[in-house]
């Protein structure tokens, strides 16, 4: 009950953020965005037709009124139709599940593998496994996401490489074909996040390892494994959770956009990319507002998780 109250209060506190995001995206994408009048008209329109379309698009109304209309669309989840004529909500319902099953394996595996590597590096701190892992992490950080995608595609999917997986496309009708299509994107997402994640996890663990209470526990003769789990890792949980939670919005849009448009996977990222290229405002509106909402939810969930792992945190 207390948690629920807290969550609601936090959600309310997120409202200014939502207001800001919608205001900025409205101003940039709609008010100063591309003029759609002429793309909706046929050849040689009469002045009356132009006026009519401009009225229909609301171009003759003042800024505030148009912004309120924009907000109304978001609150009622009625974004209108995409330029293809398909309702935006239908487009979202079709594309978001694809993106979820595409991104999730790489997201989870990336964090798990990064954590394991960081544990190994911290355990052998200063010795060769640590140096090796950290050197590879800097290497991984220096490769562009785009190059990773193309490189993995050449090595794993092309006829010049191992030729194990389909070059591009998507088919999740059966588990076998899902796995064959999802492998290369998953490896690419993992690879690109691994360097940054491993370094971050290692630095947190090493910082916690050098605390006084760890030395005290060691002096008391507690078993090393117990110290590692209960005295060190438990204290690392808050930075870890923050890291994982805040990478969700980034992966959901940034990662999906590039992977999907490159591999031709019909998810939300590709839909967004196409909307960017063609200036399809209803879709962009929907994506921006949904990401902003996701962001606020992540912030709230993050604070609640703090409370779960650390009883000292009070939900004020």
């Amino acid at each position: 009950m207390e948690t629920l109250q807290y969550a609601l209060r936090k959600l309310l506190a997120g409202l200014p953020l939502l207001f800001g995001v919608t205001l900025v995206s409205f101003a940039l994408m709609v008010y100063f965005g591309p003029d759609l009048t002429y793309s909706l008209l046929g050849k040689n329109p009469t002045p009356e037709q132009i006026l009519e379309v401009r009225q229909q698009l609301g171009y003759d109304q003042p800024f505030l009124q148009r912004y309120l209309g924009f907000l109304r669309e978001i609150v009622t989840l009625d974004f209108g139709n995409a330029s293809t004529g398909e309702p935006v909500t239908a487009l979202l319902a079709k594309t978001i599940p694809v993106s979820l099953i595409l991104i999730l394996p790489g997201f989870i595996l990336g964090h798990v593998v990064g954590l394991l590597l960081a544990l190994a590096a911290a355990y052998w701190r200063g010795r060769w496994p640590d140096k090796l892992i950290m050197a590879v992490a800097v290497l991984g950080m220096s490769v562009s996401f785009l190059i990773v995608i193309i490189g993995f595609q050449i090595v794993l999917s092309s006829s010049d490489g191992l030729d194990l997986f389909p070059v591009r496309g998507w088919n999740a009708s059966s588990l076998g074909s899902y796995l064959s299509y999802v492998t290369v994107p998953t490896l690419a997402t993992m690879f690109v996040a691994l360097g940054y994640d491993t370094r971050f996890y290692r630095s947190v663990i090493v910082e916690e390892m050098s605390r006084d209470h760890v030395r005290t526990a060691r002096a008391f003769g507690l078993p090393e494994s117990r110290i590692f789990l209960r005295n060190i890792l438990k204290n690392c949980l808050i930075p870890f959770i923050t890291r994982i939670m805040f990478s969700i919005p980034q992966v959901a849009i940034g990662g999906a956009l590039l992977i999907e448009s490159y591999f031709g996977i019909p998810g939300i990222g590709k839909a967004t990319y196409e909307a960017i290229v063609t200036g399809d405002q209803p879709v962009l509106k929907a994506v921006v507002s949904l990401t902003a909402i996701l962001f606020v939810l992540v912030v709230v969930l993050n604070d609640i998780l703090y409370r779960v792992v650390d009883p000292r945190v009070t939900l004020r």
Partner: protein
Amino acid sequence: MNAVTLAGPAPVRQRGESLWRKAARKFGRDRIGMLALGVVLLYFVAALGVWLGWWAGGWGDLTGVKWEAVSRAHWFGTNIIGQDIFHRAIYSTATAFEVGLVVALVATAIGAVLGAVAGFFVGTVLDDVLLWCMGVLDAIPFYLFVAAVAYALTGNAWAMHVAMVATFWVGTARLIRGEVIKLRGMEYVLAAHSIGVSQVAIIFRHILPNTSHILLVQASITFVSAIKAEVILSFLGIGIRDGMSWGLMIDESTKEVLAGFYNNFLAASLLMFGLVMAFNAVADALQDALDPRKVG
């Protein structure tokens, strides 16, 4: 009676080592850091030559036929329409430096000023407003933001720079804000207050210079981020408009890679990898050298 000489022997000046001198000494002993700095300088010379018009001027000329192999005339071969890949890759180095330097300098400067102001006036409305701005910019997906800015500026060549600066200053500002909150409670700031130094002078002459080690590291990190973002944005078609860049080369190469011609892809990605790797190493070495907690 002889006049008493009031001046005793001149006091020996405390030979304290400044943070910067110490950092330079530590950096000089960091072999990987020095090597990486050398590599960055090498890239910079390549970029400088392009700006001064010494080489790579013919990046757009058709000097050969389609997909020529590596030869003395074409060091990295030619691309799909017969342009010299080596010239294009070197020209792109200058583009990368242009994007990286402009974005890193402007974003770090904005982040420093706004972060310092937010930190100094922590808890006031001004701080709240600045934090709100940072939150809003964080919550908008980067690629969408760039696309939106590109549209709002209707095809302006600087749209990408503006969008990157508008998002990249936030990280620096948050760090500086935290540091300034720490510094503003120190005695020397109190002393400055009590002798009537104005708030503007305190922020910009007394506090901000003491965060310059953070700013240097942040600028180098922003430089790397800008180069990496440019490649992806150019590939998506919302980046560099006129000119040549590694991102545009990679975009070009995706058609060639499927046909089994890798020179364009390899030239752009290896050159980019080298610069980013070296810059990352420099940033790491800087961070180590400027960290006062690390003895050396």
